[in-house]
C-alpha cells in the first residue's frame, strides 16, 4: 500500500516506521525538518518538508494515487483541511484525520472522513483499565455520512486489502447528532 502521513510527531513517526518496516510505501510530511529526526536511520520511505494543507505540496509529494492518507498534525483544523483535500482533490479512498475535539470529530465523521480522537481514545483506555463504562465520546469513527455535494465519494470503490474505514468504534459511542 502507498500511505501518506501528514505530521511527523510521535504517532506519525511511529506509524511511518512501522509501515515502512512492513514493506509499505510511506511518504511522511512535516513543516519542520527537525521532526524527521524521530524517524529511524533505516527508514526507506520519503520524508518531505512542506505544508500538508497545501494542495500543490501534496501533489508534489506524490500523494495522488495513495491508498491511505493520515492527517496527524497537532492542529485539528489543519488535519481536517488536509484530509478533505486528500479526499476531494486527490480522490484518496481511505482518509483518516486526527481530531481531538470530540464534537468536531463526530461532525467530520458525518461529513465522510474517518476520525481519530485522542480525547475519547485515552479516556476510554483508562475506563477500560479501571473497569468503568465507556465515555461515549468519539474515539475512532468511520465516516457515517456522505457530504451532500459529493456524490463521487459514494461512487469511489473501497480500497483493496485492509479497510481502515471499518475500524471498530467504542461500544455505546453515539453516532447521531
Amino acid at each position, binding site marked *: 500500500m502507498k500511505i501518506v502521513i501528514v505530521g511527523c510527531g510521535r504517532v506519525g513517526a511511529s506509524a511511518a516506521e512501522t509501515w515502512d518496516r512492513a514493506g509499505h510505501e510511506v511518504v511522511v510530511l512535516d513543516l519542520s525538518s527537525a521532526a524527521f529526526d524521530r524517524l529511524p536511520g533505516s527508514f526507506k520511505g520519503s520524508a518531505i518538508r512542506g505544508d500538508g494543507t*497545501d494542495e500543490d505540496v501534496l501533489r508534489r509529494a506524490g500523494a495522488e494515487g495513495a491508498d491511505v492518507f493520515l492527517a496527524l498534525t497537532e492542529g485539528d483544523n489543519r488535519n481536517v*483541511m488536509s484530509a478533505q483535500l486528500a479526499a*476531494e482533490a486527490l480522490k484518496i479512498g481511505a482518509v483518516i484525520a486526527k481530531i481531538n475535539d470530540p*464534537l*468536531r470529530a463526530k*461532525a467530520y465523521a*458525518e461529513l465522510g472522513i474517518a476520525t481519530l480522537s485522542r480525547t475519547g481514545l485515552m479516556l476510554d483506555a483508562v475506563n477500560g483499565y479501571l473497569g468503568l463504562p465507556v465515555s461515549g465520546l468519539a474515539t475512532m469513527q468511520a465516516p457515517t455520512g456522505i457530504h451532500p455535494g459529493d456524490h463521487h465519494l459514494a461512487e469511489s470503490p473501497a480500497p483493496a486489502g485492509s479497510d481502515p474505514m471499518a475500524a471498530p468504534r467504542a461500544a455505546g459511542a453515539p453516532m447521531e447528532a
Partner: protein
Amino acid sequence: MFVLVVGGGKVGYYLAKELIDSGHEVALMEKDEARARQIADEIGSIVIPHDGCEGKYLGEAGCNRADVVAAVTGDDEDNLVICQMAKHHFDVPRTIARVNNPKNEALFRHLGVDELISPTRMILGSIEQDIPVHELLHLGALGEGELELIEARLQAGSPAIGRAPGDIDMPDGCSLFALIRGGIATPLRPDTVLQEGDKVIAIGKPECESFLHGQLIGDPQATATGG
C-alpha cells in the same frame, strides 16, 4: 439578524462594529484572551473569549440560532472548519469565509461554504487592472534591427476576431504570416478566420507596431495614432 463573527483581528473587529451600528445582533469569538478583553472594552460585552473552532464554544455562542456566521480569522483551515461546523452541525443558513490562499477557493466552495472573500484575489485583481496585459510581444529582431518579429495574442475585443488576414489592413513592409492556435503553428492562409485566443505572428518595421496594435489588439489610442 444575528451574526456570529469568528476571529477578532482587524477584520473581525471592524465587521462587528459596523454590524452593531447597523442594528444587528452580533457575537464575536476571539480565542486570545487579552485581545478579547480589549475588544470587549471598546465595543461592549458581545465578545466570547474562546476558540470558535471548538464545537462546544460555537454552541455556547449561540451558533444554532445564527443567521450568518462569518469566519474571518487569518488561517484558512480555521475558517473552513468554522464554516463547516456552522453549516453542517448547527444548520446555519449562510456561512462566509475569508480565504487567504486563492487556491483554496475551489475546495471551500466544493465543501459547502456559501460565500468566499479572498483579499489576496481582490488585491491581485486590482493590480492586474493597472498592468497592460493586452500587449504585443517582441519575439526578436531580424536583419540589423530593421525588422521585428512580433506576436499578438487576440483577446476579447480585438477587431481582428472573425476576420480573415486579407481583410486586415497592413501598411507596406508589414505582414502577418503565422498562426498559433491551441499550441499548433500553421502558416496564415487567406481563408483563415481569426479567433479569440489565437496568436498571430507578424513581421515588419518597428514603426508598424502601433498600427499592428490597433488592428490586432484593439487599443483605441493605438488605432488613432496608427491609422
